[in-house]
């Protein structure tokens, strides 16, 4: 097939707008923080999770002259809505504000980042939606930021990183999940680290490829934590979207987790169903990177092992270089499943997408 294989009107659940530099956020910071940025010479908060020049961070042809990918609403729109004919894009901004150590500074920069997304992206293209970036450094500040941004119905999700200071299930985070539930916002957990701990439980790895590979175990730990601590017993309406998590690790992880749940459930009595049942009810995963072999039959088998047609969400992960050509959905998905993950699964996940925004 030479034509672009697209799902017209798809909801692209993972698109990354780039912040060019800290200066771009200055108009959205108050005087104190603006002065701080200038006086302290702070010009970059780029995260080590995505080294700017790494091949995985952007496909070469998606970089502009200065090497920055996804630098404007128009560039992103041309690719996502133009070439791929998607109808909606959810913007997940990965600028490293979640790594800051000062909770005050983190709160100020999250506010600035979310306001920047509104002004430079959401206001420029009505097909765009976004996630609220929150300062996990301080739970009260995080809830404040959700309350502040949730009024704008174009924010459809709350966004945190996969690797945190402490596991996400821990009880002091629960006010955040209550706020998510209150406002119909899924908790989106995206690949990346706040770098409070080594990115592996065996210390700091040598190579970047190990850092990126370690994201999948990072997601597994968070899934175990959210379930074991009882988050879903307390917040039955909470949905969690694992974004850029990879997909094929899920069955193997659940087999092991399910087996130990059978043997050890007395330790966590509020986990009253098998983990895979909880996962099917509460978790969704975006499809890129789809970490199966290229062979369509292997892809088919990997999907079958998930035992759920509801769990995957369409996502290009633009501009990260996860696939070649236009194969946002890898070969091996049936036409019906392609359609389902592109439209109905995202609509069932993101309550706010069903509204006429604004």
């Amino acid at each position, binding site marked *: 097939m030479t034509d672009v294989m697209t799902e017209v009107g798809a909801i692209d659940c993972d698109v990354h707008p780039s912040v060019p530099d800290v200066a771009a956020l200055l108009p959205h910071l108050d005087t104190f923080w603006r002065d701080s940025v200038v006086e302290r010479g702070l010009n970059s908060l780029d995260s080590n999770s995505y080294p700017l020049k790494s091949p995985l961070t952007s496909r070469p042809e998606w970089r502009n002259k200065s090497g920055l990918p996804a630098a404007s609403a128009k560039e992103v729109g041309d690719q996502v809505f133009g070439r791929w004919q998607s109808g909606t894009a959810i913007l997940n901004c990965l600028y490293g504000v979640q790594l800051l150590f000062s909770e005050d500074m983190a709160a100020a920069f999250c506010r600035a980042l979310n306001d920047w997304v509104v002004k430079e992206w959401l206001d420029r293209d009505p097909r765009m939606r976004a996630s609220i970036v929150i300062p996990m450094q301080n739970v009260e500040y995080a809830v404040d930021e959700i309350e502040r941004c949730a009024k704008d119905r174009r924010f459809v999700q709350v966004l945190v990183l996969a690797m945190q200071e402490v596991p996400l299930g821990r009880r002091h985070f629960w006010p955040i999940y209550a706020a998510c539930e209150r406002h119909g916002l899924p908790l989106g957990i995206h690949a990346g680290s706040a770098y409070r701990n080594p990115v592996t439980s065996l210390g700091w*790895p040598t*190579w970047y490829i190990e850092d990126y590979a370690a994201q999948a175990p990072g997601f597994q730990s968070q899934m175990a934590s959210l379930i*074991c601590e009882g988050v879903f017993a307390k917040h039955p309406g909470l949905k969690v979207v694992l974004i850029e998590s990879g997909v094929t690790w899920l069955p*193997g992880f659940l087999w092991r987790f399910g087996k130990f749940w059978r043997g050890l459930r007395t330790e966590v009595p509020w986990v009253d169903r098998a983990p895979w049942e909880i996962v099917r009810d509460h978790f969704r995963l975006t499809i890129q990177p789809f970490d199966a072999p290229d062979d369509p039959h292997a892809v088919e088998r990997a999907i079958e092992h998930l035992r759920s047609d509801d769990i995957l969400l369409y996502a290009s992960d633009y501009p990260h270089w996860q696939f070649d050509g236009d194969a946002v959905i890898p070969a091996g998905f049936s036409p019906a499943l392609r359609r389902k993950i592109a439209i109905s699964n995202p609509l069932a996940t993101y309550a706010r997408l069903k509204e006429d925004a604004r």
Partner: protein
Amino acid sequence: MNIEVSAKARANGQNTRLDIVDCDFHPKLTIEMMRPFLSNQWWVYLQTYGNRSRHGYSKGYAYPKMTPQAARRDAWPPGGGLPASDLEFLQQQHLDYYGISAAIMNPLSPTGQGDMNIELSVAMASAANEAQLIWTGREPRLKSSVVVPYEDGAASAAEIRKRAGNKDFAQVFMLSRTGEAAGRKRYWPIYEAAVEASLPVGIHAFGYSGWPMTSSGYPSFYIEEMTEHATAAQVMVTSMIMEGIFERWPDLKIVLIECGFGWLPALGWRLDKQWKRLKGEVPHLQMAPSEYIKKHFWVTTQPMEETENPDHLLEVMNWIGMDRIMFSSDYPHWDFDDPFVSLPPSLTDEQRRKIYSGNARALYQLD
């Protein structure tokens, strides 16, 4: 998992003779057994300070186990002592009862592995190896593992060379939670010496790396500690591949013990996918990451993955390779897998023969 097995009920073993090699059997080598092989200085030190693992508790574990000693309730010897500390009782309850022809001993604590005091680890590893030889002398079905003080690469290599050629030793023994990921340079002397001695390196889940058990800090529950062993194993395999140790030692063989295996195919796929983009960073790799997995890794069965659909388990086993999977019981621990019922019934006879014994006999050169 805690069904009582009477030690005498089946003294004649099973009716249909199946050759079973148990690749994960845990002898309890008491500190008293090791005493003759420790200097007076270290003996006094142990009496005074004990082992100090890289966590806070001086006795016991960071996460309390769900049963005493994490053992089967029926594995406590009637004559007293800790589970698997009484050779005669475990012969009856385990080796004879199941008709096991060979069992690889993987001693856990007290062996000093991962202790904060590396010199103490060096002394205790050697003593643990001497203590195992006492048992192999009394029970020829048992095989020893060369316990190495893995945080000291040079001392570990010396311990391996000291044991090389002794047919009582079947493998080199490490734990999965090392202070750095197992591919890192500090561990290379271990792999060099293991290859030189023609011994596979068995890496058993557990240990304390000194780092939090997740990349988001410490989890709350023992059940998470148990699931996290599989995440640590993923990181470990990734490190060994990416650091290029299999290019340096093409004959190096790694056995993943009690790490599970359901995650292994997906890890290979993920690494292959990333390698396609990032191979410029790791030019020392000569083939796709999953090829290294196929060529250099073996897995043991317990804790046997339990899939919702039994066909999926067979599929995963086929992806790994029926010639790479080796039966293990984990005796005497609570999550012990019974040799008679743990493997999927739909395996062919040939597959059963390989998994129960053939693969292990070939790898460990047991005949």
